[in-house]
């Protein structure tokens, strides 16, 4: 009997170990594409990297969440303090799979659940742009998380539930909506703030972009679906104009953490902002 229990326990442990194992991209699967750092700068702004990592990418921004405090890392090309010397495969594993070069899971406060949908070309171009930054020796504090969230291995299970490359808006009928979908769901990671989370911190895609409390506990990221109580009264032009200038249709100004986001999106093209607007008009309306 005892023997059976021991065998069962070992089997459960083995299953858990396998289930939580980081799943990485093999270097041989990284396509050989020419890198364009100029286009990488566009990816950088569309992805909002500087909003958390800082304009010089040296990190340190504190992200307060219901799970604990995250300290955003230094991603300058510094070989020790930053991500200098990373191979393309290591960078891809961080961005697309949420796995560090040491094989550890990253916490999904880093929005790899969105970036996992990005194209190889954009990923490669982005790395080329990041490589142009000045290396910073700035050391960032460790995350402050209580048990059980400090057990990184558990993120392996979380990823099985929430990490996939499927589009939330499965049907995108026009090229413009598809473009907007890529900007919103992949690079812009808009859902990270504008979509409510379930109790495990995964995005509730049934209420996609329907608004959510700010992680830090003050205020809300608003509902940005076409519901009458959300952006229903905004034309696509209103949305694009807001993203360009920061002014609402009532000519109030953008506020809170959206200021940074809007200023990033102001650096994209009119066509990009129009595509985001077309996508936001195409998602299902959900009441706030």
């Amino acid at each position: 009997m005892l023997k059976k229990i021991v065998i069962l326990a070992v089997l459960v442990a083995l299953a858990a170990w396998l289930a939580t194992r980081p799943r990485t991209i093999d270097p041989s699967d990284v396509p050989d594409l020419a890198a364009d750092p100029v286009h990488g700068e566009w990816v950088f702004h569309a992805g909002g990297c500087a909003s958390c990592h800082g304009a010089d990418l040296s990190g340190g921004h504190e992200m307060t969440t219901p799970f604990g405090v995250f300290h955003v890392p230094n991603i300058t090309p510094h070989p020790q303090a930053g991500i200098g010397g990373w191979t393309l495969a290591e960078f891809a594993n961080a961005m697309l799979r949420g796995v560090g070069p040491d094989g550890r899971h990253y916490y999904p406060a880093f929005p790899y659940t969105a970036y996992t949908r990005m194209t190889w070309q954009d990923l490669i171009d982005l790395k080329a742009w990041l490589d142009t930054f000045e290396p910073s020796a700035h050391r960032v504090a460790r995350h402050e998380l209580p048990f059980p969230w400090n057990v990184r291995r558990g993120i392996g299970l979380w990823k099985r539930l929430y990490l996939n490359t499927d589009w939330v808006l499965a049907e995108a009928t026009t090229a413009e909506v598809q473009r907007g979908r890529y900007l919103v769901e992949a690079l812009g990671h808009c859902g990270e703030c504008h979509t409510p989370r379930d109790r495990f911190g995964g995005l509730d895609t049934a209420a996609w972009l329907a608004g959510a409390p700010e992680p830090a506990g003050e205020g809300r990221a608003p509902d940005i679906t076409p519901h009458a109580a959300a952006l229903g009264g905004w034309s696509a032009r209103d949305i694009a104009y807001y993203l360009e200038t920061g002014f609402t249709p009532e000519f109030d100004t953008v506020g809170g953490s959206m200021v940074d986001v809007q200023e990033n999106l102001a650096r994209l093209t009119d066509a990009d902002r129009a595509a985001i607007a077309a996508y936001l008009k195409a998602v299902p309306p959900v009441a706030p």
Partner: protein
Amino acid sequence: MVRKVLLATLALALFPVAVAAAGDSPQEARHDLMEDVGGAAKTIGKMLKEEAPFDAAQAMEALQVWADAAEPFGTLFPEGSETGYDTEARSTIWTDRAGFEEALAAFKEKADAAVAANPQTLAELQPAAGPVFKTCKACHESYRVDD
């Protein structure tokens, strides 16, 4: 008698409305003034977005609302008016008064310049009003509570 009671009741019922509309408190007065500034922004913004036809007289009127607002606005944040009336004023106005005054001065300067530019076409309105819009955004970022 019945009529007097009715009138008195009506007067009492309207009293709070009248008080609120008068905007006696600095919180209400600055809110009302900011509504005017926002209304002017909407007039000009709609022209810039080409949702309304360009009208030089209307544009000038709106620019003048901006230029006239800055000075009285600065007087409406006395000590003791930090909270109340659902004010969206941020505490930084009182802790960083110099910065707030500077932001307000920038608004005044750009608004005065826009009036002086006297834009007669949509193409002239954009460079005149654009810098003012920037000062709105900058000041709100530092000195207004986020929703």
